[in-house]
């Protein structure tokens, strides 16, 4: 979501609580009735005219889900979720899916414009350098409630062999790829929320980078929840073949509503030999108001498999939104010399609860992982880092380095660190460090003596605290993330 924060300046804020993306949009919707049962699963599959194998897969996941219990180990508390009180399918009514941007509902285009999401393809002229300050082009897949409404730059990408399209479309256009990889990293019955997603997922992005191809531009998916009482269940699948490279960005916002909304996404990444996937997220779902009313329940399963030797998967996330965040982007380091990275900034304010971290599973020899987590708690929030580093027996020479730092702002919030370190190989080395601190009074005074306001000083110090993570983001994303951090913490100090 390039330009999300640009909207800070350009879009009139429609909010009282400082959440500037909280407007809703009136779009005629096609909704499934509330509730979840086999018929709903069949209905979703039918709406998308899916092949039989996929329906089977969904039904199996649904059967598995019925037997599972909601996990309770995370340090988050919420009233029980009534899974029968949700709509599991909501799509803008205009049918069939638009073929070009001209056919997209103008209301929708206006909304994306308001969010600062460029759904227009700027012409890229051969031999013309972009002007200074101009953004490099980014291809965007815009997912509105349950469906993809537009994907830009597809033709440009296709020229280099890159497939970037809604997964619902890939099921038809590249069934063999989807069939081969879907559920291969996060199996349908992996966990409660993944099983739920597998049963009812509606759309999401599909990316395929063929052998030796370096994706010519950043790819990006922008998720927007709009409809009331709907769950959002996207499924993203990114496959990069030998030697391929892709950088993928993900952004999310939702309207400000009093009721909680469920978001249970699954992201699967597959990196073959020498492939690199860089996955960046700026998660800014509606966090609820100051009293904890409303907000998104964000239960997300993200996992990448470094299947080939020397492959690399790097997760970077800036989590500022959601009432509850439950999310552990992970790497299975199977290929020898493969590399996993997790860089995270999680900010919680008001009554937000975040329980987030990663799992690094070292299987191959000389596999390497780096974890840098920066948690910032303010208000009455709770912020937990939970991470697993597992060194399997065959992971000779594996290395892990973990740094977890927590910053507390005010004395009504909590900061927690729960690392799990499991090692079964003597030649492997793991290192974990964690610290907890607050913004020191002398740091604030120093900045203010130089002329910074209290809020700017906090913003500056927090951004400094997060720098090791922010520098991993693509440049323009980083700038936006910085502003977002400052906005999230407005009014937290003083």
């Amino acid at each position: 979501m390039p330009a999300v924060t640009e909207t800070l300046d350009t879009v009139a804020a429609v909010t009282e609580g400082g959440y500037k993306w909280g407007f809703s949009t009136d779009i005629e919707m096609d909704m499934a009735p509330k509730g979840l049962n086999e018929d709903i699963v069949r209905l979703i599959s039918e709406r998308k005219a899916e092949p039989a194998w996929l329906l089977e897969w969904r039904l199996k996941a649904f059967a598995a889900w019925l037997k599972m219990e909601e996990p309770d180990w995370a340090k988050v508390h919420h009233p029980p979720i009534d899974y029968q009180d949700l709509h599991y399918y909501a799509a803008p009514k205009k049918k069939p899916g638009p073929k070009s941007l001209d056919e997209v509902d103008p209301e929708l285009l206006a909304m994306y414009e308001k969010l600062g999401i460029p759904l227009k393809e700027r012409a890229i002229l051969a031999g013309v350098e972009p002007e200074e300050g101009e953004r490099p082009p980014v291809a965007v897949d815009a997912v509105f409630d349950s469906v993809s409404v537009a994907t830009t730059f597809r033709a440009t990408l296709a020229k280099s062999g890159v497939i970037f399209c809604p997964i619902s479309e890939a099921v038809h256009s590249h069934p063999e790829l989807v069939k081969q990889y879907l559920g291969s990293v996060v199996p349908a019955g992996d966990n409660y929320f993944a099983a739920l997603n597998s049963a009812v997922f509606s759309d999401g992005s599909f990316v395929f980078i063929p052998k030796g191809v370096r994706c010519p531009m950043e790819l990006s998916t922008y998720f927007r929840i709009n409809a009331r009482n709907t769950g959002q269940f996207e499924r993203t699948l990114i496959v990069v073949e030998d030697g391929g490279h892709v950088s993928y960005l993900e952004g999310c916002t939702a309207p400000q509503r009093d009721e909680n909304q469920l978001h249970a996404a699954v992201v699967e990444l597959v990196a073959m030999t020498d492939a690199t996937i860089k996955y960046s997220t700026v998660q800014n779902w509606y966090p609820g108001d100051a009293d904890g009313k409303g907000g998104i329940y964000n239960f997300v399963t993200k996992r990448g498999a470094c299947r080939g030797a020397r492959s690399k998967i790097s997760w970077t996330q800036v989590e500022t939104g959601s009432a509850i965040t439950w999310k552990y982007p992970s790497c299975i380091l199977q290929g020898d010399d493969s590399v996993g990275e997790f860089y995270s900034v999680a900010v919680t304010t008001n009554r937000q609860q975040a329980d987030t971290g990663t799992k690094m599973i070292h299987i191959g020899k000389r596999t390497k992982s780096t974890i840098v987590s920066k948690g910032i708690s303010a208000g009455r929030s709770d912020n937990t880092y939970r991470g697993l580093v597992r060194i399997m027996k065959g992971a000779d020479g594996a290395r892990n380095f973990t740094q977890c730092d927590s910053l507390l702002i005010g004395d009504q919030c909590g900061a927690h660190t729960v690392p799990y370190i499991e090692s079964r190989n003597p030649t492997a080395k793991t290192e974990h460090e964690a610290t907890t601190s607050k913004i020191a009074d002398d740091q604030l005074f120093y900045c203010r003596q130089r002329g910074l306001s209290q809020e700017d000083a906090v913003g500056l110090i927090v951004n400094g605290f997060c720098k090791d993570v922010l520098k991993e983001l693509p440049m323009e994303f980083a700038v936006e993330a910085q502003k977002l951090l400052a906005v999230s913490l407005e009014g937290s100090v003083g």
Partner: protein
Amino acid sequence: MLEIKALRAGIEDKEILRGIDLVVPTGEVHAIMGPNGSGKSTLSYVLSGREGYEVTGGSATFDGHELLEMEPEERAAAGVFLAFQYPVELPGVNNANFLRTALNAQRRARGEAELDAVQFLKMARAEIKRLSMADDMLKRNVNVGFSGGEKKRNEVLQMAILRPKLAILDETDSGLDIDALKIVADGVNALRGPDFSAVVITHYQRLLDHIVPDRVHVLANGRIIRSGGPELALELEAQGYAAVVAEAA
């Protein structure tokens, strides 16, 4: 002009400044010397607005601003700069970004146009060159991993870039070798002019060899007990504080 009248202040219930009267006319550099515990650092913190100090009486005005009523950043925007005795580390915040943010915040507060990145860097690099400092100074995180001397030099660099009207140097000379001392002094001397004043707080006379003050004040037990010309610093150096304090008492 800085004008301090009967200023009393302390921490919690402990009174440290017991009635300071001091006038520093615009364009002048005054030195404040005194033994440890005399209230030198307290004076600099009270003037710059650090929390935790309670003002119990008196006033301090600078160019017509009631300093003691203002937030620290408002004092900064009014032109007051404190060179810290112990400069603070800001991990992850680089000097250039810090200084540009600070400078623009001050300019904004004064209704002046902000500098863009290019203008700022050009100006900052020129200052670095003029002060014979290392080029990477701007890229490094504020005071993180700096030696004691580097931190003090960084304070001088910040002063040069922010161009205050009143600089308060709180024992900026402590822990400096002679080369660093010269850099600090050059930094201050370069700013000297009809619109710039400075209060140089120091324990030793040697800094005053390089920054020759217009006036020297002796602070003891929270009061200024003697004032004089530059020769007073030499007298203190020769006789020690004890003699001067005893004489005044």
